[in-house]
Structure formats: C-alpha cells, structure tokens
C-alpha cells in the first residue's frame, strides 16, 4: 500500500515547552493508524501539524510522496486530508446540511450562482443526505435540524460524515469515542472500518485501548514528545502498548 501522508522530523515548540521533538509518522492508504500516548505526549500537537491547524517549527510533511506546506486547515483540506477534532468543530446553531458543507459551500448553477453568488441549498441538502446514507448512518433523520439539538453520538456522526464526504486521502479522528456510550462508540468504530474499506488512510487518536486494538492496523506510540514505537495489535498486547506508552518497557 502506498504512503498517503508522512511527517519527518517534526518539531513544534510552545515557548519553552517542546510539543514535538523530531517526530516521524506515516500512514498508508487503506489502513487505520492509531496514535496513542499519555496526556501531554504530543498526540494533539502532532495531528494539528499534519492537518494545518498548527505550523511545525521544522520538519517536512508529504502527501502521496509530494512535499507540502500547510499554513491553515483549508490547505490540508485541499490536499484531501479531513479532520474530526475532539471539539467536533461544528457550528451548533447551523443545521446539519449547512455544517457538512461549512467552508466549502456550493453555489447555484448559472448567473444566480456566478453573479449573485447564491447558495445551492437544495443541492447541498440532497448531497448531504446521500453522504449520510452512504456511510450507513441511520441515527440522523432530518438534515434540517440544528446540530445543537443532536446527541453527542449524532454530532460525532455529523463530523465523521463531513470528513468522509470530503476526505479523498486521509481522515483524522481525534478521540472520536471519548464522549460516547457503548452503542454509539461501536457505530463510530464501524464508520472507521467503512472508511478503511473505501481505501482511505485513517489516523485514529484514542485513549481507549480496546477500541484501538479493535480497529487499528498499526499503532504509533507517542511518549514525551517523541515517537516511542510503532507496533501492531497482532504482535503486541494492550498491556505491552501501555507499558511502552508509560515508559515501563522499552520499545
């Protein structure tokens, strides 16, 4: 499988705090790469650098082998990388369809769109419904609902649907099951597997070891701002992983 996204020797400092201290990462098309690590190990910083939310101080990022520079999230989006942030990054007062297309609204064809810049609300709604249906999300019925009226799991599904609808290469999920119950978590994990089946590269950041061992193909362990190891669920047990993560065992 080809490498969809890679970072080499990434460094990010916040004042005197070193968030990333020369980290390498790579994720291939059609695999789920989990990123685990203790709080403060640099997981979120790493992800933000890969998705344009932060600009690394040094190091290189390449998409499908070509070097890129991400200055803002929209740069990463243009390269086919979509992110579901832990905070979900949805606009609560807007409806589901508007949220799916937030930041890349489509205009009406013809003069209405080009001269008056009028939104194609009906078209976006129809395509949003199709995207939600294709992902097998059956918990969301009415896409005209405001996002703030949804449950945590439904909001997560909206955010994942948005990423899946637009991510052509990589989908990054930051703690997608942290706030969810068992049933809703399983639905999100099923979504992750569906993204992999579509040939996308998936990066999954999680604290939940059973979830990681359930869906990940490889596991990147982040410790003290560095990559401590890359293991697989087949070769290492959950307690091996936790031992490396906490420094109790060498990688």
């Amino acid at each position: 499988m080809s490498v969809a996204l890679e970072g080499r020797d990434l460094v990010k400092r916040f004042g005197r705090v070193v968030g990333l201290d020369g980290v390498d990462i790579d994720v291939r098309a059609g695999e789920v790469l989990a990123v685990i690590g203790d709080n403060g190990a640099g997981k979120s910083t790493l992800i933000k650098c890969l998705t344009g939310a932060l600009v690394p101080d040094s190091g290189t990022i390449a998409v499908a082998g070509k070097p890129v520079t991400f200055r803002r999230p929209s740069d990463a989006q243009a390269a086919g990388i979509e992110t579901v942030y832990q905070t979900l990054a949805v606009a609560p007062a807007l409806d589901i369809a508007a949220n799916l297309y937030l930041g890349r609204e489509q205009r009406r064809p013809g003069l209405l769109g080009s001269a008056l810049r009028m939104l194609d609300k009906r078209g976006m709604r129809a395509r949003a419904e199709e995207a939600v249906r294709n992902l097998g999300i059956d918990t969301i019925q009415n896409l005209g609902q405001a996002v703030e009226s949804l449950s945590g799991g439904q909001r997560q599904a909206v955010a994942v649907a948005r990423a899946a609808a637009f991510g052509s290469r990589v989908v990054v999920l930051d703690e997608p099951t942290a706030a969810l119950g068992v049933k809703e978590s399983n639905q999100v994990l099923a979504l992750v597997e569906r993204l992999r089946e579509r040939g996308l590269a998936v990066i999954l950041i999680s604290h939940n070891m059973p979830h990681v061992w359930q869906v990940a193909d490889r596991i990147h362990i982040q410790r003290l701002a560095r990559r401590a190891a890359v293991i697989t669920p087949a070769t290492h047990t959950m307690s091996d992983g936790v031992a490396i993560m906490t420094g109790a065992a060498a990688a």
Partner: protein
Amino acid sequence: MLGVRRVHDLLHRHPSISPAVILLLTCVVFTVLNQRFAAPAALSLLVQQTAIVAALAIGQTLIILTAGIDLSVGAIAVLSSMLAAMLSVPPSVALLVGIMAGFAAGCLNGLLVTRIGLPPFIVTLGTLSIVTAAVLIYTGGRSVPGARLPDLLTWTGEVINIGGFRITTGVLMVAAMYLVVGFALGQTAWGRHVYAVGDDPDAARLAGIRVNRVLFSVYAVAGLLYGLAAWVLIGRAGAASPNAIANANLESITAVVIGGTSLFGGRGGLTGTLLGSLIVQSFAVGLSLAGVDNQYRLLAVGVLVIGAVSVDQWIRRVRS
C-alpha cells in the same frame, strides 16, 4: 410540557417570531387606545422615523451576529453626513467621500479587531471618541442648515405619496439595503460564514473559514452601510448636524436585541432587526398618540430589552 417544548422548537428555528408577535400586539393595543394610530398619517410617520435607526441597525446586526458590538455607529454616520455636507467639492463627490469615510472607519474597526485582536467593545468605544472628536474639531460644532445643502443630499427626504401613505426616497433606500444585505446573509456563503464565525470561531476556523477575513468584511460592510444611512439621515433631518442621533448606539443595539438577535452571536437576522426597529418607534408614536408622557416609552423599551434577552437565553438553552 409538550406545548412548551413545541414553542421552544418553533422560536429556536424562527427567532423573528417573537418580535413579530410583539409588534402585532403593540399595533393592536395602540390602535385600540387611539384609532389614529392605524391611519396613514401616523403609519407614514412611524416608518419615516424608523428609517434611520433601522438603517444603522443593519450594520449593528452584522456585527452582533459575529458576537461583537459596535458603539461607533452614530459617530461614523455623523462623520459621513458632515463630510458630505461641508466638503467644498461638487455634491456628488462630497457625498461619495462621506460614504467612503464611513467605509474607512468601518475598515479601521475591522483592522483593530482582527489584526490587533482587541475586543470589539473596546475598539468601538475608542473609535466612538476619536470619530466624535474629529467631527467636532472639523465642524467646530456647527450644523449645516437645510438651505445651504445641495439637492442631492436632501434627495433622500423627498416624499412619494402612495395612496395616502407618505414614503420618502430614504425609506425606499433603507428597504433596498435590507433586501441586499438580507440576501447576502441568507443566500450566500459569506452570510453563512458570518453566522458560523459568531457561533463558534474556533470551529469555523477548523472548517476552513478565514475567520479574520470574515470579521474584517463585516466591519467594513457595516461602515459602508453607516455611510449610506448618513445620507438618509440628512434627508430626514433636512440639515446636517454634528450633534444628530446622539442615541444611535443604544437605539440600534436595542432594535437588534428586541429583534431576537443574540448578543452571543450566531443567531438572529435582519427580519428581526427591522421588526425591532419598528417596535421601538411604534412605542414612540403610539404613546404620544395615546397622550402618555414620553418618559414611559423609555420605560417600556427597557422592559422589552430585558424581556427579549431573557427569551433569547431561554431559546439558546438546548434540551439534551
């Protein structure tokens, strides 16, 4: 309980329902108190008096939708009107310079909010003083009486008689402003981004929206709208005075808030603002027709503002 929830859902989806109901009730009550309220003469007066605040409240709505606030509304409009009235150049050039000065002042607000990252309250409190002082220094505190104003500037005060209703060209201009900005807010990506930025700026940024660009554009457009409102102001007052519309800041904010736009941003719209402006003015016209002391109008508006914000808080509370 089901009924309450249904009302909540309805108001949540259509925040302009509550001001519409209030305006309807207001009109019914005042008509009962004095039938002249519903006569074309009083209604024409109502609409003409509403025009200025309603025009200024468009820009104020845009800014409040982004969770900001503009205290320099009135000062900027006065700046535009005085430049248009006093510059010794052909009237059309003076008018254009005046309107563009409003645009420039809006851009200044926008730059300070986005580049220096100051809170909008502080920025516009500062530009309120700066612009007010600049106008007083420039004009020496003197007004320009109507007789010395060119026809172009007072054109917005010209009356058009439609079946007994006396509408001014200024009123039509304000209506056009509502239509154009309302279209931009409701039907374009820019409008959607304005809501998203006010709703949750971090989420908007992560969704790929250039938050600072949207914010800057909102302040710039608001400044331009204040400049246009200044033209309507000159026509309505029949003169240009540096001391005009002293209460414009609070009145425009009142209209926006009564109209159901949330001070926390991301919720509301121009329909509500127009209704809010009409409510405030209908109190003024209605109470004077009913022979009630004008001070009661202020009291009623105060009660309305607090009521409107309480309703907003209730609407924002999301059931889980």
